[in-house]
């Protein structure tokens, strides 16, 4: 017969534990972990969860923080203000009898942002991959080159570079000086021309391909050289090797980078703010979504409307992230032989 070995101290502890209410028992067992988690948990509840729900609530009101007492519930009016033009509405009356004009610039800001995201993100990733492959050739001085190509990313988010960019692309700026030397005449002021202003911002973003490049470079180093050797023996040329080995094996990394870049591109603000001089630039050609939201919320104090805009942005980003992840099943391969 087996005699269970008991530890009197443990027994006593268990006895006390069973007598305590559940919540105490929970904390006795997990207290230390929650102690460590406490700052994050507090931050999540107070600075993320609560504000998110709060802003959802605000999005149904006409909240203005300079006169919070006159806040009224206006239903979906803020959302109608955004998308009214889709239904051919230019103004409408809310249930509270307020006449609201449909935001004439909202669709413009959405268009500018979409163009920016869909042009800058793919270009940036293609560039990053091309340079990463160029550097992944067992060259001497790799870490030096990597540093050089990372510098624009290191500095690119700063106001300093935004101010510089403005100068480079002005009518009498450096870019035109160069094009002039190459024989071009009649050059526009790139920043002040509505056809090109967004292009300069896209260029500024693509210029900062450094961190994507470093991620790709790390991914490329994981691909065993034997695969390429075997492919060469089988007579696959470089192009074939790229599409059959490099791209599939790098696809999980590409997916991850793509998601991160899309999310951050939708939220771009600083560079557009500086280059547009605090506004949306000429004919609102660089009126980014977040810039429009900032102007509505903080210049015009339309914080209910700004909250609604923020929620729509959240849904747009969520939708794109979802689509990219769903689509990944047919273009991302995990492991060899798939």
């Amino acid at each position, binding site marked *: 017969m087996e005699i269970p070995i008991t530890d009197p101290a443990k027994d006593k502890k268990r006895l006390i534990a069973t007598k305590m209410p559940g919540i105490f028992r929970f904390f006795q067992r*997990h207290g230390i972990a929650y102690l460590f*988690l406490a700052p994050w*948990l507090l931050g999540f509840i107070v*600075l*993320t969860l609560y504000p998110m729900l709060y802003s959802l609530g605000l999005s149904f009101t006409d909240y203005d923080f300079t006169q919070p007492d006159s806040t009224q519930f206006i239903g979906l009016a803020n959302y109608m203000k955004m998308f009214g033009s889709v239904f051919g509405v230019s103004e409408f009356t809310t249930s509270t009898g307020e006449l609201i004009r449909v935001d004439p610039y909202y669709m413009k800001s959405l268009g500018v942002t979409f163009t920016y995201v869909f042009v800058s993100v793919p270009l940036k990733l293609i560039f990053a991959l091309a340079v990463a492959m160029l550097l992944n050739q067992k060259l001497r001085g790799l870490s030096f080159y990597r540093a050089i*190509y990372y510098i624009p990313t290191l500095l690119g988010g700063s106001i300093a570079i935004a101010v510089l960019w403005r100068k480079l692309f002005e009518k009498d700026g450096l870019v035109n000086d160069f094009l002039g030397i190459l024989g071009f005449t009649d050059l526009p002021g790139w920043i002040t021309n509505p056809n090109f202003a967004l292009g300069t911002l896209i260029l500024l973003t693509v210029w900062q391909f450094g961190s994507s490049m470093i991620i790709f470079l790390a991914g490329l180093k994981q691909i065993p050289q034997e695969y390429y050797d075997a492919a060469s023996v089988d007579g696959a040329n470089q192009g074939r090797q790229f599409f059959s080995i490099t791209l599939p094996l790098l696809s999980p990394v590409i997916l991850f980078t793509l998601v991160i870049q899309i999310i951050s591109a939708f939220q771009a603000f600083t560079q557009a703010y500086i280059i547009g001089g605090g506004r949306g630039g000429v004919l609102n050609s660089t009126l980014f979504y977040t810039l429009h939201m900032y102007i509505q919320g903080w210049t015009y104090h339309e914080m209910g409307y700004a909250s609604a805009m923020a929620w729509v942005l*959240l849904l747009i980003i969520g939708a794109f992230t979802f689509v990219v992840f769903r689509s990944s099943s047919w273009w991302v391969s995990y492991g060899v032989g798939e």
Partner: protein
Amino acid sequence: MLSNVRVRHTLTHLFIISLGLLMLYPVVWMIVSSLKPNNMIFSDPGLIPKEVTIENYISGWQGYAGTTFGTFFANSLLMCVIAIIGNVISCSMAAYAFARLKFSGRTFFFTIMMVTLMLPGHVTLVPRYIMFNTFGWVGSYLPILVPKFLATDAFFVFLLVQFMRSLPKEIEDAAIVDGCSKIGVYWRIIIPLAVPALVTTALFTFLWTWDDFFNHLLYLTRPDTYTVSRALRTFVGDAGAVSNWGGALAMATLSILPAFVLFFSLQKYFVQGISTTGLKG
């Protein structure tokens, strides 16, 4: 055959260097131009100044509304130091719980943490502003610094979790057998071993806080509290016109100096940080 490879390598090197120079040209031009007399900055696009002067640094240093760039740099530095302390403490605590402790709700909270990683900050912006305004914090550094002590930068929690998970379990077990508490394990074992990841955390906290503009634009209202990035904006007028280009370029050059120094002295931490988490940089 050998010479063929050598030629190809030389060509590759040449190509990489020229592309790199092209990319760096704007930055180099900015630095060089900050040393040119104000009236020659745009008449001379070349990289070798015909005349070197520090007048731009003197005029730019005057700053804005009676506050010099000395104050702006001090403000930025102070803000960065406190932000680093906050992030290192709070993010490492959360990461320790997620990576090394077992508790019910761990998977649930970890999932939430990963979701917040992708959450656009703008959705919490208005309520946070209202909240900080109620506390009377608008105009101070509290709205920018308090969140750092509450591990709101999920990127760093993730980075540290990844790193702490890779540490061997045996060291921890040995310490527990020797009577070390969970807090002792965190403080005496995990933290010292996680120093490389903590350096990466500190580095990126510094850069992002130094370069942050949006929060500084929202919350800093008085010129004497301005940070460098907020102050640089004052060179650009409301319509986008810049009156003192020389001063703007000189102060812009000074403002990127810390990033340069940190990057070249701690390059391996950058690469490590970016490739383990895919930081947006």
